[in-house]
């Protein structure tokens, strides 16, 4: 594998600031980014990526390729939690297995954004509708996770299980809502809206992403001590399952005939795990599961793996198979 590819990913400000954040924790610096500053960054990123996606979706139109990609995305977010559940059940109780499975079926918006910055830096195009795929992959995984709990965990306590609440939580949690809302508004206002908003949503985007990754580095490093609880099984899970999912993702992308850029984004969606939306939903609907397990595996193992090694690795493989 081309080492310069890894370097050209690692030697970018966002990734280096992620390391700086981790280093701050390990070196016991008192650097911290207090709430709600990270929340502001994250609102901004979802808003900007959604809006841009909408504007470009309307430019490119809805072709067969688009429909195929979106269906494949939803399919992956259904299949991944099911197969990973059975892997996880070998070591974990059904609650924790289902919660972690849902996490990996869903996606990490920041991983996606980092991959799109990577493409931008190496000067490769990608399509706006990939953001729609991003938005569509959050909810199904949550619902599948809960169905798994319903089937495999004999609930003994009298907690009623409200499906309407579950669906609402899955489809209306703030990330999904803001992302889809911005996408729709981007599509409605098109080029005209873009002209007015792009100095905000486009020009300073990379800078906000960089600061946000500094915070993610701080947060991920603080979670690393939780990994002891997770143990070797979950740590290997957090590296191997993304690679497997990325491989499936690349195969699907090839089948549909996506461009190199879109293929990278698609496989990054498959490979990434949610550490925001799904944990919030799981905390509400499967309180029996241990949050430190599903958050720290996704955040302290899979997220760094994907943004540091995964993105250039998957791209290297794509380069091999694309003409």
């Amino acid at each position, binding site marked *: 594998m081309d080492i310069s590819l890894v370097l050209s990913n690692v030697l970018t400000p966002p990734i280096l600031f992620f390391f700086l954040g981790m280093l701050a924790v390990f070196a016991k610096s008192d650097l911290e980014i207090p*709430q*709600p500053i*990270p*929340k502001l960054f*994250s609102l901004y990123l979802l808003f900007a990526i959604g809006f841009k996606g909408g504007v470009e979706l309307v430019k490119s139109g809805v072709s067969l390729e688009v429909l195929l990609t979106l269906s494949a995305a939803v399919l992956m977010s259904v299949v991944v939690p099911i197969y990973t559940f059975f892997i996880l059940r070998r070591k974990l109780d059904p609650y924790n297995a289902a919660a972690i499975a849902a996490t990996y079926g869903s996606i990490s918006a920041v991983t996606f954004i980092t991959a799109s910055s990577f493409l931008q830096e190496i000067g490769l195009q990608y399509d706006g509708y990939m953001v729609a795929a991003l938005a569509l992959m959050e909810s199904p995984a949550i619902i599948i996770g809960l169905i798994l709990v319903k089937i495999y965990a004999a609930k003994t*306590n009298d*907690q009623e299980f409200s499906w309407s609440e579950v669906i609402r939580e899955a489809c209306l*949690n*703030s*990330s999904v809502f803001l992302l889809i809302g911005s996408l729709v508004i981007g599509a409605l206002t098109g080029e005209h809206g873009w002209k007015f908003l792009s100095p905000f949503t486009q020009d300073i985007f990379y800078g906000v992403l960089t600061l946000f990754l500094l915070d993610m580095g*701080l*947060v991920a490093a*603080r979670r690393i001590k939780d990994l002891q609880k997770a143990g070797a099984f979950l740590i290997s899970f957090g590296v191997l399952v993304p690679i497997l999912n990325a491989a499936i993702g690349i195969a699907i992308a090839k089948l549909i005939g996506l461009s190199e850029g879109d293929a990278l984004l698609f496989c990054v969606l498959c490979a990434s795990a949610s*550490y*925001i*939306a799904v*944990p*919030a939903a799981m*905390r*509400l609907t499967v*309180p029996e599961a*241990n*949050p*430190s397990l599903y*958050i720290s595996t996704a955040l302290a193992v899979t997220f760094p793996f994907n943004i540091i090694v995964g993105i250039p690795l998957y791209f290297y493989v794509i380069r091999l198979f694309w003409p």
Partner: protein
Amino acid sequence: MTPVTRMEIIASSAELAKILASLDQVGVPSYTVVRNVVGKGQQGQVTDDLVMSMLDNVYVIAFFPPDLTQRVTEVVRPILNKFGGICYLSDATEIRSTLRVAST
């Protein structure tokens, strides 16, 4: 100088709406909420460094007449069964201000 019961609840912010509704329902319409508190309990550490604030705690304080204590306790207890959280009672004395400017 009326004696009152002071109730403190610390629970997941996900349960705030339910807790306040229950208090209302049993006749405790007044309370104070301190948000974004963190802590450690049986369920482990609660921090707020993640982006979505779903995971932090709230600290609810309510003062009410002692004879309500049992009903309040009954209604709060089951809520804490789901996500954990704690509830403590203590005694306090109320300093009512004699003259309240009527607002409506």
